[in-house]
């Protein structure tokens, strides 16, 4: 009667997705901080920061697509 598996899936999905987003954003913040210190690798660090911000944004976009049935049907092919 009680669907323990569903609880498990919700828990794992929450933990994995939240940690991916936070990790990506944190790396970006760290790289920005390093870039502001200057030095020869400042440009590289900035590019890295932008990359991680983009990764973070993509994960969030994927999440939005998943919850909106119209979007997930049209983009992912299932809802």
């Amino acid at each position, binding site marked *: 009667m009680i669907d323990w598996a569903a609880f498990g899936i919700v828990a794992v999905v929450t933990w994995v997705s939240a940690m991916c987003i936070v990790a990506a954003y944190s790396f970006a913040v760290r790289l920005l901080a*390093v870039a502001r210190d200057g030095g020869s690798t400042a440009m590289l660090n900035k590019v890295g920061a932008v990359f991680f911000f983009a990764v973070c944004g993509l994960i969030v976009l994927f999440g939005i697509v998943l919850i909106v049935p119209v979007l997930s049907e049209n983009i992912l092919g299932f809802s």
Partner: protein
Amino acid sequence: MDLTLIVVLVISLALFFDFTNGFHDTANAMATPIATGAITPKKAVLLAAILNLVGAFLSTEVAKTISGGIINEDAATGVSITPDMIFAGLMGAVIWNVLTWLLGLPSSSSHALFGGLVGAAIVGAGFGAVDYGVLLSKVLLPALCAPVIAGVSAYLCTKLAYSITRRQSGSSPKRGGFRYGQIFSSSLVALAHGTNDAQKTMGVITLTLVASGLQEANTGPHMWVIASCAFAIALGTYTGGWRIIRTMGSGLTDVKPAQGFSAEVSTASAILASSHLGFALSTTQVASGSVIGSGLGRKGAEVRWGTAGRIALGWLFTLPAAAIVGGVAAALAHLGTIGVVAVAVLGVGVLVVFWVLSRREVVGHENAMSDIDNSGAAVNILSKKERRKRERAARKAAEKEQKSAKQAKQPAAVSSETSGETESGTDSTQGTEKGQKK
């Protein structure tokens, strides 16, 4: 009983419930960014209102399945939900929502709604009207699991965020960057809230229309229902439940940007994951769990367990209390038109009393978070613990100086002078300590 009159009454009460739901739950999305100064209170509620509005139009999946299950409403068992029972249930939900707002408790609007409907159904149609298995597995257990799942997530994320941004070289980690992230993460929470909570009222109105034979069964909500619910919840969100924002933003723990970002991302992930997998979680409980979890995850932040306990107590009472009010209202409404009118008059009376009580101490956008608002611009807000630690260290240093001054066996007149100097000495020790920490 005039069918159309009761239907109109139910729809207006349902929309009012949607409004209370909106201002009750503004805090879920916007309390932490307001607390860290990521966004000004007025802009925050406007952003949340717009995203709630958008979210309400995005999906009607929850509305289509609402109340299907918990209340047995099939012809086989002879149980049928009448509009006056829904009216009584909604009254229970609205009264509980306004009472918890008055107390500043972030309780679950969904649980108030379920509680009110369950209470009304039991009184109106007997104990057989409720499917307790579904109630346990779909409402009560998620109520226990949701805050824990979100809290663990926020705890892990906060730890992760701080360990990734920590600089070994000792230079500034510039964690203020998380404040910009908070604007997006809280927007995501507001959007998720719109896709979930506005649906509940749409479901109730649709159920009423079906029950009174004005709409065919198994059809989705009408466009005017979707639109009016979306606007009701957005308006409620814009009004802002400042009392609850105060509890969530500063009552549970002092929130810093990296922490707030982690908490919001955890809240949004938990809601999105559960709604995608067809699981009903309460937005409020998930958000509270996240805030507490993030408080545990940051070194030096303290969680005020007294407030957390008060909130948990509110959760325990939400379902039964709303059920009792709903039940009493249903018993009255059972008397016919006079009963329904009596419920309406009494309900409005109680709400007016609550409102008058709330005017005694007005909490608005200007004072909901005043102390934090002022220091919001500074990235490094000291937590109480850190502040106390510094004070203690300063006091110790002052005592040492006094002792050494006495040991030097100087005349009494001079020692009194040094005690006057120790105060300025305290400042300098604090200054050097700050320098060392940086």
